[in-house]
């Protein structure tokens, strides 16, 4: 039986794919760097992978909007593979630009490619913010944070467009992470809340708890030389889930 492999989808301008692969490997999993171009040209298929991660960066230079061209391409050119992936209950992780891609594509929070219901807009400071943040885990039902509810995780964040704008009428979006202050309480205070996120929202999941998007970078808090190893817990949950 072949080992479950996580596809790390990257495009021109993505720049966090290698460290995301390193974090998955350190968590005991197997990953493959999959170039979007190879999916488009048929050299690779999403079907061959059991999970997917869209890492951070500035895909296609963030032209027209952060993550928009990556998302447009996914939805327009790879819709069938994407829908099959979602329908087979395979987990997806979007970090930073990857989170922006998932919301632009309508995968988060509504699991409906092509139908956007959430956006990540310019930080309130109108600037790129490089910070170390604390994240209060507020959702137990998300696969990625199973057993972590109530914990405060420390990891870096670095983005210019990360303020969530949630426009899902009716059903509330399950919030997984909230920016927290030194006492571990959700905070609206800058810079502990680096982008002015309403209700301190830093990461959300979908109705199945299998798709996670977050602005901070767990892969930058996973390796022994990094200042925190809290991010590793998220990847370890994935590997446990894949093994079960």
């Amino acid at each position, binding site marked *: 039986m072949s080992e479950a492999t996580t596809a790390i989808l990257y495009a021109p*301008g993505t720049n966090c794919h*290698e460290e995301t692969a*390193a974090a998955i*490997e350190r968590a005991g999993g197997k990953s493959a760097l999959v170039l979007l171009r190879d999916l488009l040209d048929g050299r690779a298929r999403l079907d061959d992978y059991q999970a997917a991660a869209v890492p951070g960066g500035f895909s296609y*230079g963030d*032209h027209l909007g952060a993550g928009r061209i990556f998302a447009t*391409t996914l939805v327009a050119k790879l819709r069938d593979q994407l829908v099959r992936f979602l329908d087979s209950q395979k987990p997806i992780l979007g970090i930073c630009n990857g989170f922006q891609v998932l919301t632009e594509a309508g995968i988060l929070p509504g699991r409906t490619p092509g139908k956007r219901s959430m956006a990540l807009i310019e930080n309130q400071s109108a600037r790129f913010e*490089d*910070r170390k943040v604390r994240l209060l885990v507020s959702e137990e039902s998300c696969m990625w944070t199973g057993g972590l509810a109530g914990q405060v995780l420390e990891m870096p964040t670095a983005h210019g467009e990360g303020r969530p704008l949630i426009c899902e009428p009716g059903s509330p979006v399950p919030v997984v992470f909230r920016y927290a202050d030194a006492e571990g309480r959700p905070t609206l205070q800058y810079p502990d809340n680096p982008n002015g996120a309403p209700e301190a929202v830093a990461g959300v999941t979908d109705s199945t708890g299998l798709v996670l998007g977050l602005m901070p*970078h767990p892969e930058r808090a996973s390796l022994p030389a990094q200042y925190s190893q809290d991010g590793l817990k998220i990847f370890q949950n994935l590997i446990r889930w894949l093994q079960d």
Partner: protein
Amino acid sequence: MPIHTIYTLYKDDAGEVNVERLLSLLVNPLYQDSSERTQLDPARGPIVEIAYRPAVTDPETPSILAGARALGENGLEFARLSRRYQFVGPEEAEARKLAARFLYNRIVERVREPGEVVTTLRPTGTPDPVHSISLAGLGDKELEELSHARSWYAPLSQMKAIQGHELAQGRPHTDAEIEILAQSWSDHCFHTTWKSLGLLKRLSAATARINHPLVVSSFKDNAGGIEFYEDWVVTIKGETHNFPSSIAPFGGIATKHGGVIRDTLGFGKGGYPIGGSTIMGTMDPRLPDADVPAGALHPQLIVSESIRATAYYTNPMGIPMMHPVYRIHPGYAKCFALGHSVGLIPRQYAIKEEPRPGDVALLIGGETGRDGIHGATASSTGMTGETLEKEFAAVQIGHPITERKFTSAIPVLRDAGCVRSITDLGAGGISCAAGEMGAETGVRVGLDQVPLKDRSLTAWEILLSESQERMLVAVPPEKLAEAQAILDRYEVLHTALGRFTDNKRLEVFWHGQKIVDLEVSFLWEACPIDATVVAEPRRELAPLNIPEPTTPGEWGEAVRRVLGHYHCADQQAAGSRFDTTVQGRTALGPFGGRNHRMPTNLYVSAPLRGKTCGVITTVAFNPFYGEIDPAAMARLMMIEAITKAVVAGADYHEMALCDNFYTPRLRPDVAWDLKRMVETIADLSEQLGVPFISGKDSSSGTMESAGRRIDVPPTLVVSVLGRVPDVKKIVTKDFKRAGNKIVLVGRADPQQLGGSVYADSYGQRGDRLFDAYDGVAIREQWDALLRLRREGVYLSGSAIAEGGLMLRIFEASFGSGLGARIDLDVSVAGRRDGLLFGEFIGSALLEIAPGSESSLSKVPHYVLGEVIEEPRLILTEGGRAIWQDFTSSLAAVWSRTFREVVE
């Protein structure tokens, strides 16, 4: 001021375009509005629309077209982007003036007139034909005039050499040939100033004599490299971009980063960038408008635009910021703009090969445009009030996405064996890169296939263009197809320009015409070097006259002056806009401590993922010291940079250095200083056994403005590239525990406040520097520090630099949430304020456990006080507190200065 983005879409005659469908690409309706008609009302104020020039491709165009194709809109032939600004307040003429100054770059952009009829969006334009230019019979004066008028800025001796060459070869040169010679022989490319002083080889000779076992590559390649661990090599390069950054800071700084990153990519057979820095010297951004020299931009604009540009370029590149440093000096009318790039490469690829005849010269990366023409020659000249206007074209435009693409592709090309040699296109463009790479063989290239973003470019402009984000690769012919396939996968443009030959000539073809035919030996060996007169400068220095504080109020005032000084102040308002953790390699970033706000003055990377062996970098930059004694400044910068790394726990036997000079335009007195500085650091490096492996000089730091000459202070930035076996053992400066002793280890002389921040806060410079260590003494100091570190004697530590003990004590408290009590009765003679604010370069502030003072018995040291639980700083004398304050209220002063400048 409302800003509207306009998309102009152009379909081919046959095609249909469904704009409705394209909308999902152009706008996100959750937070953006769109309309096919303008929503701006001319009644509210003038509207100015900025678009790229007709001949120029928008960088966004390929993205829009790719997105449209993905959506199935194949009828879309072309797309353009423009921005419409509505001004509220100014009249039309004033609005256009403001737009020209701040909102667009007229080399590539323009104002689109209302009602303009669009017939095509595709780039259009017709190039000028190739001309011959004969210098035959011209006299000295005419040669000089021609050189200036054509922006060659070649000195008379070079013009005469070209004139002589014309006679010898029996035909006039083409415009392309003279352009190539002028830029290849410019100071920027050829280092004529340094060569005339015999300095270019001075540092490399010292490095050769040191014969350091870790040095892999020094002064030959685009960067210098040392052995890391496990068959990897780490590299460093520092590059200044002073002239473009002075006249167009955003473009200048963005391309400063782009350029130095390409030096890493062009090291060996292709390195990978793992860290960068931005180091700026400007006039004081708080300067009143009236005091800004005519022809110079306001320093506030330079600093804030430089921050924006660094974020714009380095964040998308995915390269962590190691050292964001901002300094001021009234001499930086022509600003100092330095960037470093640190790289990682497997040992087996660290040395490039010579191209072989038949190898393909493959141009990769962006399209070639009109930006950056004459960058090399204009950079090499001084700056005057008119330069801002005349040489605007010399400024390049940066597009990080283009560079990011080949940053991913180059290691793949390299590992597949497709790279014989690689170099970046910087100053001098294709001609310089091809000419240099083919210096031993010869090279024949054609320009017809070069992808252009501007259709009106003529041959010499294509050759000389310094358009960014391009590299030249020598590919073995049997590997060409594989290289092209890799580049296609990574969506990198590539063009086979031609082949390396064996006739030792640079030959260039354009539209069937041979437009360049020069022997490479003439290009690289025939440049005349003018002799330089050297004369000792007369410095007008005055001793300091600063009253020593006596009352608590005066002490508080003194502390606030120093902590709030631009050089000591919190610069996180800039630093937090740069990604410091991308790549996941950062073990210690520029900001640390419990609150992640304390400057660490260190950057430590763990480049091999999962391992804890590390790279450490530090920098030293002080624009004040050079005014008093340039040679001593140079020595102090070396000592400061190395001491910073040694205190952190890095062994000075395992590091190498990079130098970046910035000096005024050559005159006899400037030559004297330059010579002394270089000789001083070359000699010291030999004494210390710490080699320089890379460096760059700029000798154009002079601006003429309204009859006044403004010289930059003699400037040298020294940076350290070192390796450490375990990043977990790095010592930081934040205090660790209340009750521990605070100790100054090394020499101190409180009478020497010359060049200090403290003196500058009184508007004074002084006439003497603290310069207490020679090569032998500083090695003893470092050996002692390393021993203390091995024995675990100190728990926190920092090297003394600007702001003296006081700044370090404050930062160590602020970063830990603890406080400190400092006793001014220590047994060192001299001024009490000198003890606190003196910049004892080479000495260190350490925190040791109580009772471990005996381990310091063999080292000169002074016990200053102790760490206390309460977050406050207390100064005592004779057992009585003479001043105290909370770190939080001092932090407010410390964090205000820089923030007010940039926000």
